[in-house]
């Protein structure tokens, strides 16, 4: 075995799972015993089996969920008090049933495009950067045995291993096995930059896992038993909700515990509904938010005036999320559902940092200076990639806080919202200490270098919502708008390769119940359409400079569009007393042009059995390209190489946008719909409710 299989660790995790499950059952049972009297219990068991075209089974998820509720009004002198708990156990068998796609046998050996230097080369077979025709050789490059579980040690002369190409930890190699080419599933990458992504679970293949510790480093059991993790997500909810009737006639309500707190009025789009992070690894953006919100330990205090002499309803609520910050779960390389394919991008980058990697179609200086062409290049560890994930520790100052004033006036529902939170999607901060690949003894913060830490910046959100009914057109409207301060976006024009932008997001939803007599004369169809808009107030985009030897310049800056719009349409009908429910969901991304169509039919056989058959098809192929920063000159060594040793002054030159590709930033332009274009699926769910 060229790289170790951490069987022991995997087994111990499995044991932990069993212990966790046992504990879960015990806690549930003991809770049940203590609170058994009048305890309301409901729940379901479910199997969801999805089949993806060309891939086979993409989900074989088995879920048992139990919901407990008990009225304990009067306790703590409350006017009403209720205990609620939701426990969920999920096992996804896809990692066993289709393990050559997602599991221990996933991936394989790969070839990477070699640009102008000839046919593709195997992973590890790229060129080494050379100075005056002599490969630098350091730090250790791919296939330089023994390769590495390499963590460069910076800032001190006592880093001999790094300096001399020896592994810090003599454990894993970095072979051409268990890999996929980043973005290859999208089709022709058109000469863009790619690299290999280890796609087996982290217990089987550790490459790229260490820099993503506690973020995207799941082993197989953690993927399969996704609710059993360090945050005990099998406890979906566990909270007390109550209120005090005050002498004034008003009420003071509270909710305390692990819970979901939902703001906003729209479906699918999360403009105000951003308190809980969400788990996109479950089914991308397509599952109900109810099932993919990640519950947090929070407190909510709410003062309810009810009807006043001015408002028909008014209340003011405070939310304190005192849980440790958790980002959205984007999915991990080797999982069937990854939003924006981000898990693969991150793990590939992390592997590059950790072990080195071959990057396709990269500019290679000629022996006498100038550009020899584009070819596959082997980068050693510590040069490019993701170095670390900076997940904020728990501290009082790292907790999140929100205020909402909500009410009803003149038949218009409204809310005003404020939230001090964090960006739940990652921001890649460049300009971290890395190695000049032309001079392994030169370690510095290089502007425009593709070396990153993952950060989750503070964000302040101010927004509001409305709902109203317009009788003339028999329609209800829902509106949300939010402005944020502090969000960060990839930006190839800045030395750190990211910049901040204020963002305005809005959604307008339109609901109309419409009889379509020839389809159903007794039951109206729900037609619900939504338009979502996003505007980056500090959008940064410009045309790069002309650079001799490179193709004509292109746009540089933020890959994210300054303005983008998404549209959704839901048409839902009901037959057989709502026991047979067909529906059609469509979503269209205006800028990328991608469209998803998801017809479904749900059949409620009786009070217990429910069958849902759904398809999820994407209508458009094609990928977007963006400046991939290959044209940047981050290093003095590169400057010297390009100028035949004349100068290092070109170091710190930004990309001129002349070299572009799908990876890594085109995905932001394609969005979640476009990046899932090869994920056409048939989905069957069978649920037994009790």
């Amino acid at each position, binding site marked *: 075995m060229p790289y170790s299989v951490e069987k022991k660790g995997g087994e111990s995790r499995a044991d932990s799972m069993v212990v966790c499950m046992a504990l879960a059952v015990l806690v549930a049972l003991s809770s049940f015993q203590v609170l058994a009297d009048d305890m309301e219990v409901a729940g379901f068991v479910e199997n969801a089996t999805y089949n993806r075209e060309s891939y086979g089974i993409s989900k074989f998820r088995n879920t048992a969920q139990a919901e407990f509720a008990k009225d304990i009004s009067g306790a703590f002198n409350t006017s009403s008090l209720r205990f609620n708990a939701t426990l969920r156990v999920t096992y996804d068998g896809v990692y066993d049933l289709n393990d050559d796609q997602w599991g221990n046998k996933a991936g394989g050996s790969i070839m990477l495009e070699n640009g102008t230097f000839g046919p593709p080369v195997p992973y590890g077979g790229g060129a080494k950067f050379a100075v005056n025709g002599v490969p630098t050789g350091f730090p250790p490059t791919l296939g330089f045995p023994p390769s590495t579980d390499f963590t460069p040690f910076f800032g001190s002369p006592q880093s001999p291993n790094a300096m001399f190409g020896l592994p810090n930890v003599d454990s894993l190699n970095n072979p051409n096995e268990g890999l996929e080419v980043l973005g290859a599933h999208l089709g022709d990458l058109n000469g863009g930059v790619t690299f290999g992504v280890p796609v087996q679970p982290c217990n089987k293949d550790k490459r790229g896992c260490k820099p993503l510790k506690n973020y995207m480093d799941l082993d197989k059991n953690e993927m399969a038993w996704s609710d059993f993790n360090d945050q005990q997500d099998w406890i979906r909810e566990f909270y007390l909700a109550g209120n005090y009737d005050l002498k004034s006639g008003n009420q003071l309500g509270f909710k305390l515990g692990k819970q979901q707190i939902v703001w906003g009025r729209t479906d699918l789009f999360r403009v105000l509904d951003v308190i809980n992070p969400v788990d996109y690894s479950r089914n991308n953006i397509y599952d109900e938010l109810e099932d993919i919100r990640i519950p947090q330990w929070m407190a909510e205090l709410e003062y*309810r005036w*009810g*009807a006043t002499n001015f408002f*028909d309803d008014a209340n003011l609520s405070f939310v304190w999320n005192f849980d440790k910050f958790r980002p959205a779960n984007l999915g991990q390389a080797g999982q069937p559902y990854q939003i924006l394919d981000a898990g693969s991008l991150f793990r590939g980058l992390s592997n590059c940092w950790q072990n080195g990697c071959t990057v396709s179609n990269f500019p290679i200086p000629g022996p006498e200076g100038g550009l020899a062409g584009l070819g596959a290049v082997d980068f050693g560890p510590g040069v490019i990639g993701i170095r670390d994930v900076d997940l904020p520790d728990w501290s009082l100052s790292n907790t999140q806080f929100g205020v909402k004033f909500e009410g009803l006036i003149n038949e218009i529902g409204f809310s005003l919202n404020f939230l001090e939170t964090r960006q739940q999607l990652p921001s890649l901060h460049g300009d971290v200490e890395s190695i000049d690949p032309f001079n392994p003894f030169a370690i510095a913060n290089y502007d425009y270098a593709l070396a990153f830490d993952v950060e989750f910046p503070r964000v302040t959100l101010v927004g509001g919502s409305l709902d109203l009914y317009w009788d003339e057109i028999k329609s209800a409207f829902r509106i949300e708008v939010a402005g944020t301060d502090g969000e960060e976006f990839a930006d190839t024009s800045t030395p750190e390769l990211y910049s901040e932008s204020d963002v305005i997001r809005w959604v307008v939803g339109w609901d*109309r119940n419409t009889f379509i007599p020839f389809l159903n*004369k007794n039951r109206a169809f729900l037609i619900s359409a939504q338009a979502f808009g996003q505007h980056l107030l500090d959008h940064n985009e410009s045309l790069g400079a002309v650079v001799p030897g490179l193709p004509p310049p292109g746009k540089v800056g933020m890959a994210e569009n300054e303005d983008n719009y998404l549209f959704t349409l839901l048409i839902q009908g*009901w037959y057989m007393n709502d026991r047979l429910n067909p529906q059609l969901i469509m979503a269209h991304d205006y800028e990328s042009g991608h469209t998803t169509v998801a017809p479904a039919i749900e059949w409620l056989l009786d*009070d217990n059995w429910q069958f849902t058959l759904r398809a999820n098809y994407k209508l458009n192929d094609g990928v977007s390209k963006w400046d991939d920063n290959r044209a940047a000159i981050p290093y003095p060594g590169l400057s010297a190489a390009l100028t035949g040793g004349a100068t290092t002054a070109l170091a710190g030159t930004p990309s001129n946008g002349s070299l572009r590709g799908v990876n890594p930033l085109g995905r932001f332009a394609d969005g979640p719909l476009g990046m899932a274009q090869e994920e056409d699926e048939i989905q069957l769910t069978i649920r037994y409710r009790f």
Partner: protein
Amino acid sequence: MKVYSKILTGFLLSGLAASGWAQDATMEDVERSFHPYDFETPQTGALQPGVVVTQANVDEIAKDFLDEGMYQMVKDGWVELTVGKLTSIPLNEKYIDATRINLNTATLGEQVGELNGYVAGRPFPTPPNLEDPRAGEKLAWNYRFSLHFGDSGAIGPFYWKYRDMESGKVEKTLKMEFNAYNWKHRTLEPPIPQVEDNPGDLFRTIYMRVDEPFDVKNTQLLIHRYDNDLKRDNAWLYLGFQRRVRRLASGQITDAFLGSDLMIEDFEGYNGRISDMQWTYKGVRWMLVPFYEHNEMVLGDEFKEDDGFQYITFGGKGGCFPNITWQVRKQYLLEARPVDSSHPVGHRDIFLDAQTFAFSRINIYDRGDKLWKMWFINQGPDYASMPANQGRGVPVYDGFGMMDIQAMHCTTAQMRTEIHPERVTPKRFTPQYMRAVGK
């Protein structure tokens, strides 16, 4: 003293000649309206308490006391009706007093849905007259301001069963809570006459929550009806799986509610605006209707309640008919025809109880005026209900059946009704309450 002077004024006013049909009520009209059986009793022939009307004898003894739909069902052997005794259901004296005090103060406006000068009580106690072109509209107003729940009420638990009429299979069972609260024109319970903080000028609010089964658990419905009938109701729906309050489009109140055979518009008999219908009075009928003393019925033990309350049971074709006694009562036949030409209903024939002004039997016709649904709402006197309701002076809902005879499907309900429960307060009828109660 003030009350008596108002009553005296009412007497004086009642003697005045007035134009049209609006101001000719007398105190005798009031007495006749609230105590009809002190003045007249039905001549039922063989239709005496204890007699069972069957397909064999319906032509002979009961045809004149049944509407066309019920007659056909008995004739087809779908149901047998056991005759019960006539039970007067006198309404609360406070409400009757309010009628006396405010006699002849309410007048119809120019257009349907306009009511001027109404304060409280029964606005039009005068017997309806077929010559009065707006008699139907007055009956509708009487229904709107009647004591359906007193000033507030709750049904909880409220069990709905969806049944296949052919096979009798119960397809779905819902457990719910239903609340209603009057914000204005209150006569029985403080605050009287109205809730002060009411900037929207609400008349009545309805709240409904589903507790079972799992797929619709935590679904909540809220309806705001305004005192100005010309103003469109506002309605909100909270869906448990979305955890959001959504504004309902008005189309949804004429849609099958949660897949049942009822529209939201059917709640309590008719749950829409007066101005949404053209109302036509069609005359007096003495009818067999589902009024009875709850505690005299054979009750079931399918559902257990802490207070020992037991529910009526259902039988007959598909299990769609209540196992109760039916009594002959005075009914006003009222036709309600939707103004909106796209409304799924062609018209409703409504039998309005002349004493309580509750809807007891309704036949619903489709757009082709073909009989579509049959709707009966069981109710009875408070003295035969649970202890907390006794003496309230309010008829007590006890169950219902809505049969879609075109689809051969029905929805039945068993009710535990409480009049003026403490938990039903204005705070319960806000969108925020739905969010707070919902998961």
